[in-house]
Structure formats: C-alpha cells, structure tokens
C-alpha cells in the first residue's frame, strides 16, 4: 500500500494542473459541459467508493443521497432565500444522516453483500416515491431553481468556466478525502472489514462504527454533489436525480476505473462519460437510452473480463514490467 504513494502523487498534481489550465484553451461550451458533467460524475463515483470500494459495502441507492442534497439546498433557496452555498452543507449533512440511519439499521441486523445492496435500492426507491408524491417538493414535475443571473454568492454564474472550476474543486476535494481515508487508520480498518469482517472484529476493530463513518462520509459528499447539480442545471426532478438509473450510473464508473482505489472511480468517469456523450451525440435524437445501453454493456464486460478495473490492469502491467526488470538485474548479477 505504501509503495503507491511515491508515484501516485505527482500524477495527481499533474492531472490537477492540466484540469486547471484546460479552459484557457478556449473550449466550446459543449466540450466544457461534457467536462463539467464528467468531473461531477467522477466526484459522485469517488464518494460512492468510500463506502463501496474501501469498506466493500456496495450501495445501489446513492441517488437518494444526491437527491437529498439537491432538494434540500433548492428548497431552502427557493422558499427561504438561503444561499445554496449554505444549503449545500445542510443537504450534505442530511444526506449523511440518512446514510447513518440506513447503515445503522442494515449493519446492526448483519446485512452484507447482496442483501445490503437490495436494502439500499429499496430505501432509495422509497425516497423517490415520497418526493414524487410531495407537492411542496414539486412532485413528478420537479423544482426549478430561481434564476438570479450572475450571482456568485448565490452559487449562480454566467459562464460555464466558473462551474467548471467548482467541479474541479469538488472532485479534488473528493480525491483528497479518499487519499486521507486510505492513508489514515480509517482506511486500513475499512479494507480489513472488506477483506474479512470477522477477522477485523476479532482484532478489536469496532466494525459497525467504522462502516457507519464511511457511510456518513459517502452520503455527505454525494449530497454536496447534489447541490452542485441543482445549481448547474437549475432544474431537478425525481427522474433525473433520484432514480435507480442514476444509482446504477454512479456504480458503473468505479467498476470500470477500479473499485477501492483512490483514482479509479474518477478515471472510470473520465473514460466512460465521454463515450456515453459521444453515443448520445451520434444517435441522440433518435434513441433516448443509447448511452445507458453502452453503460450496461461496459458494466457486464468489465466484471467478466476486467474485475479490477483499469487501475488494476495498469498495476498488473507494472508488476509484470517490474518483474521483468528484476529478472534482468538478477541475470546481470549472475553474469558478474
């Protein structure tokens, strides 16, 4: 685990620098939009990964977290004029608390693996149904975020570039949290729980406590993402932000990139989102679900042929190369 530290940091900083400089290139609004959504999904995938990847508790209800965040900040903004910058934190905390409630009931009753996944689906469906039937939250027709023009204090910008930098900031923060978690004791505990929960328990790790911590973090971050989505798109409805479809989308990226790694989930989004966008722009008008068709196919193929994702693949190639180098060194030594 320690060995990845030395090569991963420069790569991350370089990537960050590239992303910070990218808009100077004068990108079209379409490309910028694709980049923003790609960063946004990379962030959601990174948030999912804290619970799903590090702790190995696969949730298929993350749309509920995103939705709670988005609806909270939007409701507070449109009803009480509270700035989404503040609503964002409230939404995040509420999403985290929802996660705690869900996680506490599920983990307390010993649910894991497929059963945890089924419970998260059902819980997210309930949240969606409640919102669909709640008139104050706009029901099926959704909520529109009041448009106030360019107003940074109210999380609204005229140019896409500002949103782009917010998205970069979000993802960078998400990855930073992931790095901290993975380097900190919490990360080691979570991995121990994922690999063998009984053994972790026997070693004296309070597994419930750490799983809940991961759930809260994951839910909180996803909630922040929800507010960003609401402020960027300026419109939210249950279909786009609370549906099972979004939960599945969130899980596809980490699987492609590499579950349980720091950069894998974002990498997955960077690869797959543009592919989906391309599919949408080529066949878009005539076929509504074309990008989801691709995502489903990617999901299946990844699990069958590349279960450790792109990061796992890169690591294996590295190991093979290192192994070859070492074999050559040994050979050279033997000749001397």
């Amino acid at each position: 685990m320690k060995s990845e530290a030395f090569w991963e940091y420069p790569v991350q900083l370089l990537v960050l620098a590239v992303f910070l400089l990218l808009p100077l290139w004068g990108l079209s609004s379409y490309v910028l939009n694709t980049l923003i959504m790609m960063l946004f999904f990379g962030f959601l995938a990174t948030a999912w990964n804290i619970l799903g990847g590090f702790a190995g508790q696969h949730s298929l209800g993350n749309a509920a977290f995103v939705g709670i965040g988005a609806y909270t900040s939007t409701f507070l903004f449109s009803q009480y004029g509270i700035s989404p910058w503040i609503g964002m934190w409230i939404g995040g905390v509420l999403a985290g608390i929802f996660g705690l409630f869900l996680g506490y009931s599920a983990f307390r009753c010993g649910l894991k693996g497929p059963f945890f996944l089924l419970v998260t689906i059902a819980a997210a469906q309930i949240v969606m149904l409640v919102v669909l039937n709640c008139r104050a939250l706009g029901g099926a027709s959704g909520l529109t975020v009041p448009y106030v023009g360019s107003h940074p204090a109210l999380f609204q910008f005229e140019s896409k570039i500002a949103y782009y930098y917010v998205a970069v900031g979000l993802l960078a923060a998400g990855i930073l949290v992931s790095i901290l978690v993975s380097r900190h004791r919490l990360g080691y505990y979570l991995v121990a729980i994922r690999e063998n929960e009984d053994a972790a328990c026997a070693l004296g790790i309070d597994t419930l406590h750490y799983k809940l911590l991961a759930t809260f973090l994951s839910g909180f971050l996803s909630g922040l993402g929800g507010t960003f989505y609401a402020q960027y798109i300026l419109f939210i409805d249950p279909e786009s932000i609370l549906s099972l479809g979004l939960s599945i989308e969130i899980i596809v990226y980490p699987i492609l990139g590499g579950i349980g790694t720091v950069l894998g989930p974002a990498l997955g989004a960077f690869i797959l989102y543009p592919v989906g966008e391309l599919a949408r722009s080529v066949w878009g008008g005539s076929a509504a679900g074309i990008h989801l068709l691709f995502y489903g196919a990617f999901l299946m193929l990844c699990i069958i042929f590349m279960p450790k994702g792109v990061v796992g693949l890169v690591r294996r190639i590295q190991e093979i190369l290192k192994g070859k180098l070492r074999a050559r060194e040994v050979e050279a030594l033997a000749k001397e």
Partner: protein
Amino acid sequence: MNSTIFLQAIVNGLSMGSIYALIACGLTLIFGVMNIINMAHGQFLMWAMYGVFFSHSMLFSDSYASLLFTVPLSFVGGMLIFVLFIRPILNDSPINQILVTLGLGMVLENLALVLFTSDLRNVTSGLSNSKIVVGSVYVSATQIVAFIGSIAMTFVLYQIVQRSALGRSIRAASEDPEAAILVGIKVKRVYLISFALGATCLGVAAPLLTPLYYISPTIGELFTLTSFVVVVLGGMGNFTGALIGGFIIGLTEAFGYVLLPVGSLTPVLIFGIFILLLLFKPEGILGTRGSRV
C-alpha cells in the same frame, strides 16, 4: 370502506398476485439452483411482453395464442443468456453476479427503448370485453385466465422439480453441486436448463399479463423489484413461499391503492415490507433458513 370496494380489491389483488407469484417462481428457481440474484428478470419479462405485442400485431388475433411463440422463444432466450453472460460468472462473488445481471437489465431495457420507443402499448384479447358481474363486483375474463394460467404453470413447474428425473437432478445440483457431479449429474447442464425454465415462466406470464397491464421498456425495473420482494417474502428458493408471497404482495398492492390516502404511495408500503423483512426475517415468512427449491 364498503364491501364492493373490498371485494373488488380482493379480485384485483388475487389476479395480479397470481402473476407476481409465477414471475417470482422463475426468479426463485434461478436463485435456488445456482444462487444467482437475477436483476434482469423484469427486463426479460418486458421483452417477452413485447414478444406478445409483436406476435399479436403480426400473427395472431388473440394475445393468448402468442403463448405458442413466447414459450419456446423464452426458453431458447434463457439458454442463450445463460451461456453468454451467466456461465462465465458462476464462480464469481455474489456482488459481481448482481452487477452483471444489472448491466444485462440495463442493456435490455435501453435496447428496447431504442428499438421499440417509449410509447405505451396495449394488447387486447378476444376475452378483453367479457366479464362476470357478481353483485356489484366485476371480474374480467382476462383476470380469471391470468389466475388459472399462473397457478397452473406454477403447479407444472413444481411437479417438474419434485417428480421428474430432471427435477431430481435440479434438486441435487442445488443442494450440493460437488456431490451431484460425483454421482454423474451434469451440473452445468442442469444450471442451463433451470435458467431456461426460469425464463420460460416469464414466457408464460407475459401473455397472461398483457391484457391487464400496459407494455413499455421501463416496466422491467418495476417487475424486477416487485418479484424480489415476493421472493424474499416467501424465502429465497422456496416455491410455496413464492406463491404465498405473490398473493400477499398482489393483495397489499390492491388494498394500498384503495385504502391509502395517497394511492400512489402504495409501492412505499411494499418496499417498506421488503426492508423490514431483509432486516429482521431475511429467511422469509415460511422461516426455514437456507431452504432450497
């Protein structure tokens, strides 16, 4: 609540419940035999329903006649899907298996969306307009056919599993695959046939369901989730449980729509039952943990 509404809800609940039971039997067979949680089950059903729609509009005048078409096709389709997608992941972790079937469901749903568009379709049967009126309660002929057909198919499936030689190997493979191999049972082939039989349940359910329910690419998800609730309620891998669970969910749904102040919140009731079951009684209402087929 007056007695008419009460009785009408029972009629509606029993007819939908019997179909849920049949759909869930397919799911529980697949789970019981090879421990695969098939998240694409409802999407298979949705495709079978489109099979009914197209055979109805091109070949047959009656939706029930399309059984001739959907039954063999769903059996072959099930075999094909098993060979292509399920066999490679038989030894994977349960989570990976779920994710593969989830991906398959996504592909099937969105392929249907691309090919058939999101328009809602209806299929009528020659029986669609006939109904029996008992007092003030309406029972449509299609509801009766759905009820009898579903129960009959469930019974046939039960007989196959309990009485036939094939059923013996299915039960052996589900109880202990390694021991089954040792006594000469071709376990992989048994898996193949069980999966195809599970899909065939949907080939039978689709023509029974279409006169009662609209067709659209997105209904698959709904049926996947509902049939999971039924299967967990009855105990995973338990036929009798699936039958009872189907009726419970069918009736809960029918009564939910009449009794709840907001009828469209009924699914909340069903998902609520599901969560409580998973938390406190994951072995189902019949209660023997780990029972198989």
